[in-house]
């Protein structure tokens, strides 16, 4: 198992390195990296001074070395807007997004597995149809639109929930609700599909022949076999949650990493953009390794090789 994890960690390190390299070269592609870092109205003199200071006129490889060592030291530059080290800014915003993501994903998995298995238990029944409909909605509805419609309905028209910002539990309902939709919808479908598959399998026949009750067949035999599929999809969705978080944080004004990034882009604050990307990527890679651990724990066939 340790070997497996070690390999995965190595893969992630390589991937991270590739990402960093990509960012590096992408930036230098534009011709004048300084213009990415500085505000639009910076004067030529300012640009030249900046370039000089950061060595943009040095040989590329030397720059790359410098870039790498900076990154490893956590030196992403200084955010123009906030006038603080970019890394600080990102780390300050990180917990907000993390809590949003964790709560949403947990809810999505719990609800998704529950709804999906019940739907598989009675295929074609009312629950199944409802489940299919909600999955379809989750997969088709643009999250920014749902968020806006939600605000229209619950905040503006009905006044039940606040329009934006963080605060008490009421501020969490809509952001989590909107963010939930896609992963929940997808998980329901995946669980249902995997369960139906499992329910059609030979080992379920054996269980029934032993006299095992239908409930146990569905929620123990079939569900356990669907575990892998759930973990895979849930893992993929974690990556997607970051996407969704960007939108949700923007619409609801949450001070998380997503909003930070969009604002940084709008304000041409590249140091911040860069820092956000790299920190987020690291978090995601770490998460993927965690998922792989779950994989191994869930399926005995993988464990023994």
């Amino acid at each position: 198992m340790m070997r497996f994890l070690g390999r995965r960690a190595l893969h992630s390190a390589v991937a991270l390195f590739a990402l960093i390299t990509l960012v590096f070269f992408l930036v230098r592609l534009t011709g004048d990296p300084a213009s990415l870092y500085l505000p639009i109205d910076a004067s030529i003199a300012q640009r030249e001074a900046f370039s000089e200071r950061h060595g943009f006129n040095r040989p590329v490889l030397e720059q790359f070395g410098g870039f790498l060592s900076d990154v490893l030291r956590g030196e992403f530059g200084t955010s123009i807007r906030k006038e603080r080290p970019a890394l600080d800014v990102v780390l300050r915003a990180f917990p907000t997004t993390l809590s949003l993501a964790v709560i949403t994903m947990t809810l999505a998995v719990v609800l998704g597995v529950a709804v999906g298995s019940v739907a598989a238990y009675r295929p074609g029944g009312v629950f199944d149809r409802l489940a299919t409909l909600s999955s379809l909605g989750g997969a088709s509805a643009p999250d920014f639109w749902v968020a806006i419609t939600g605000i229209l309905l619950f905040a503006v028209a009905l006044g039940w929930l606040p329009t934006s910002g963080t605060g008490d539990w009421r501020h969490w309902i809509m952001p989590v609700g909107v963010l939930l939709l896609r992963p929940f919808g997808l998980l329901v479908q995946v669980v249902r599909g995997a369960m139906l598959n499992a329910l059609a399998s030979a080992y379920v026949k054996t269980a029934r022949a032993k006299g095992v009750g239908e409930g146990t067949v569905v929620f123990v035999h079939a569900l356990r076999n669907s575990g892998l599929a759930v973990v895979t999809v849930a893992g993929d969705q974690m990556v997607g949650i970051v996407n969704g978080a960007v939108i949700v944080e923007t619409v609801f004004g949450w001070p998380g990493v997503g909003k930070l990034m969009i604002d940084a882009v709008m304000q041409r604050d590249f140091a911040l953009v860069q820092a956000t990307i790299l920190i987020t990527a690291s978090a995601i890679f770490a998460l993927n390794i965690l998922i792989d651990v779950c994989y191994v724990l869930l399926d005995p066939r993988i464990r023994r090789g």
Partner: protein
Amino acid sequence: MSAAAVTEVDDVPLLEVRDLRVEFHSGLEVVHAVNGASFRVNAGETAAVLGESGCGKSVTAASIMRLLPQPPARIAGGSIHFAGDDVLALSRRAWRQVAGRRIGMVFQDALSSLNPVFSVGWQIAETFRVHGEGSAAERRARSIELLERVGIPGAADRFGDYPHQFSGGMRQRVMIAMAVALGPRLLIADEPTTALDVTIQAQIMDLLASLRAEYGMAMVLISHDLGVVYEVADTVAVMYAGRVVESGPCAQVLRDPAHPYTLALLRSVPTGKSKAEKLRPIVGSPPDMARLPAGCAFHPRCEFAREECRRSAPPRRALGVTRAVECHFPLELANGAGV
């Protein structure tokens, strides 16, 4: 052949399948998988259901155990009685008392028939657990005993192993252990050895024989393998196109067949006697179960077919006390017990 342990011959057979009809609705057509099959099994007896692939034998077994998904399948007629009870009419709860406890079933492919994510021991213990037998420790002990009984070496250590860690023959033994765990009166074995090597086949059949003797179980053996059937079965029901075309004591039927199909089956088995032996397959191919020929289902391939056979379905005729055949012109028997 007859096991020495065959005891009572009840008036009421342990299992009686009468005129079973099973349909599958796929697309616009209806496949008549089982077309009026009847046979019976007495306590302690081994009855074989013999036939080619597609003749309906597996579907019959699945029907007995109420394992058919309905739809697309549908039990369109007939009855199945086990120890006097109408199997198809039992409530779900009542049936769960029968499945696993009074009737056990062994399937063909043990790799896909065992749940890959649970240990072998867990799955055997489940049979006990589901039927409320004893504490966890007792169940574990009994499961280990069972594993030993079916010939798994180092049973205590292997309790926690997973199906993929066993060889094919071992897995089949595990399946058998699960099926006989509660000492059922009837064991249904659906092609238990088809997926195994010949040498392992023999071991498994021996295991089944010894278990039958020990528990006094009756067995329904579904197979297409004449050799296995001849070795093991007391009675045989030969199925073709969803019907039982001939039945009777195994030795008699297979040595002295009355139905042309049975004869053709026997002839098609290579004897290995001479190097120049030509294979004698049965002419033609099995019928399309959605479009059965009119009259006798076998007539297009029968070397003795006559006008009558094309026109009408053959009646079931008794040949003496224990044998029966569905044919307009059954073959002459050696002892002259004809129509």
